């Protein structure tokens, strides 16, 4: 707590400091919260409220309360799509974590700040081209007449072209490729602030690297891991172009389903109900994440 020389008696000074902190706190939090109240809470509230009304033809909303949308949302067809999406998103997140962690460590341990920034930018640079175009590039690479198969056949590794596209594996590949930097950047931010001696001890490929990792590094970088996982998991779950293009549209994910309700069927109430279901699931995961964070706060010592 900042101590200030003050002519007031100690208890009054403390109270003065306390309410000053509170006002400062309010001032600091206000801009973002007000912005969100107007441009997020209000619009979302309006849309999600429609989940409990009826949808009419041609996108009309009939303002009679109903639970019909909830019943429909619990149909095994939709639950199945949600579950399948969660599975693919979890797989994507896990792979991103495994791939992203060493990369973040490497970048964070470069000595020069310029090098670190340069590497970060190199990681991100592919993502300054357009997502759709990059996805089409994967189609060129992986299709039956494509580059990868051409190389495999040319090298004699396979006789017949492999079916690399239009399946779940291709979808996961596309998602990992699409969201990897969103894992690397928060991990980097968390790792980079750790005292370098701790960092070196933990990453030295000498004795027991995994052990050092687990007991020392992990508690310190958990917030970064958690942020990275959320940033990858959520957009993967709701992704629309990747399952369509790389998955060949064979297997719907929840994002496609919701998109269809809002745009094709124009049944906003039902679409909103699906969104609510999705958000409830995600909030449950968030609560879990927050629990993990709190535990790490107790364990970790500031580096």
């Amino acid at each position: 707590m900042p101590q200030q020389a003050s002519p007031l008696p100690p208890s009054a000074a403390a109270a003065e400091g306390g309410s000053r902190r509170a006002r400062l706190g309010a001032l600091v939090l206000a801009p973002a919260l007000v912005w969100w109240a107007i441009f997020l809470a209000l619009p979302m509230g309006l849309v999600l409220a429609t989940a409990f009304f009826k949808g009419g033809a041609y996108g009309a909303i009939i303002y009679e309360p109903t639970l019909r949308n909830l019943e429909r949302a619990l149909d095994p067809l939709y639950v199945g799509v949600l579950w399948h999406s969660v599975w693919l998103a979890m797989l994507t997140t896990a792979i991103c974590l495994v791939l992203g962690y060493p990369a973040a460590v490497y970048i964070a341990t470069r000595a020069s700040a310029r090098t670190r920034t340069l590497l970060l930018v190199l990681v991100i640079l592919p993502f300054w081209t357009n997502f759709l175009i990059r996805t089409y590039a994967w189609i060129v690479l992986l299709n039956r007449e494509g580059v990868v198969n051409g190389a495999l056949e040319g090298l004699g590794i396979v006789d017949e072209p492999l079916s690399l596209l239009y399946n779940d594996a291709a979808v996961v590949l596309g998602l990992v490729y699409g969201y990897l930097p969103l894992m690397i950047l928060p991990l980097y931010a968390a790792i980079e602030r750790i005292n370098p001696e701790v960092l070196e001890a933990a990453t030295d490929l000498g004795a027991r690297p995994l052990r050092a990792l687990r007991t020392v590094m992990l508690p310190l970088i958990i917030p970064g891991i958690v942020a990275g996982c959320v940033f990858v998991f959520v957009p993967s779950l709701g992704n629309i172009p990747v399952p369509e293009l790389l998955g060949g549209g064979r297997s719907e994910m929840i994002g496609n389903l919701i998109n269809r309700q809002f745009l094709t069927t124009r049944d906003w109430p039902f679409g909103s109900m699906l969104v609510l279901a999705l958000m409830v699931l995600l909030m449950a995961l968030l609560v879990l994440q927050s629990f993990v964070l709190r535990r790490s706060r107790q364990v970790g010592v500031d580096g």
Partner: protein
Amino acid sequence: MGEPRRPLLAAYMGALFAFLYLPIAILVVLSFNDSKLATVWRGFSLRWYEELFRDTEVLLSIRTTLVIAIAATLLSILFGTLLAFGIERHTRSPALENGIYLPLLIPDVVTGIGLLSFFATISLPLGTTTVIIAHSVWGTAFAAAIVRTRLRGFDRSVEEASLDLGVREVPTFLRITLPAISPGIIAAALVVFTLSIDEFIIAYFTAGQTVTFPIQVYSMIRFGVTPEINAVATVMLLFSMALIVGAYLIARPRGPRAARPGEGPA
């Protein structure tokens, strides 16, 4: 202070960059494809670049996208940094801690449609401004989350020393705290900027008659992906690389490692 040799890790980074850049290499090569199809090679040609430079719509959409991204990024890191501070230092509310992720949970379609209706209701005309607002909504969440990971467990002793010495909160913040958390702010800015220039769904609902680059690409796909799109992507890539090289050369070198609070001189 040298870096320990870690050949395995370095090799891994090489492989990772190969993975990241392989599709990029493909799309660059295809931009020289003498065929209307973006996926079958027919010979070398520069015609798509010619078409691109005549295509004022595409060029305009790129400019619009950059303007939006820069503005949205600035707003987001402003709001997000303040928010991160507020949460980390001034409150222990779990609602707020989880709340910063809330904007990210909402699917793009819903945010897009919600904001479209909202803007129409309050009679705010759709255009660049509305897209900037829309992007700053999720951008703030990303920025707050990333800056916060930097703030967690941040050693405050130097800050406190500064305050003890009579330096007031704002200068302390500007001269001590801000530089120390700047890697987090840079990471946040990079994330928000990158996501904004590629963001399609929310923009397509909130842009009205304005066209951003992702919207332009998506609408061109309606009549088939032509290599003009690859040419655009290549040009954007070259431009970004030029920007980076330029920034790298201009930025004053700061010595082997910037000193950080609690560490003393490097």
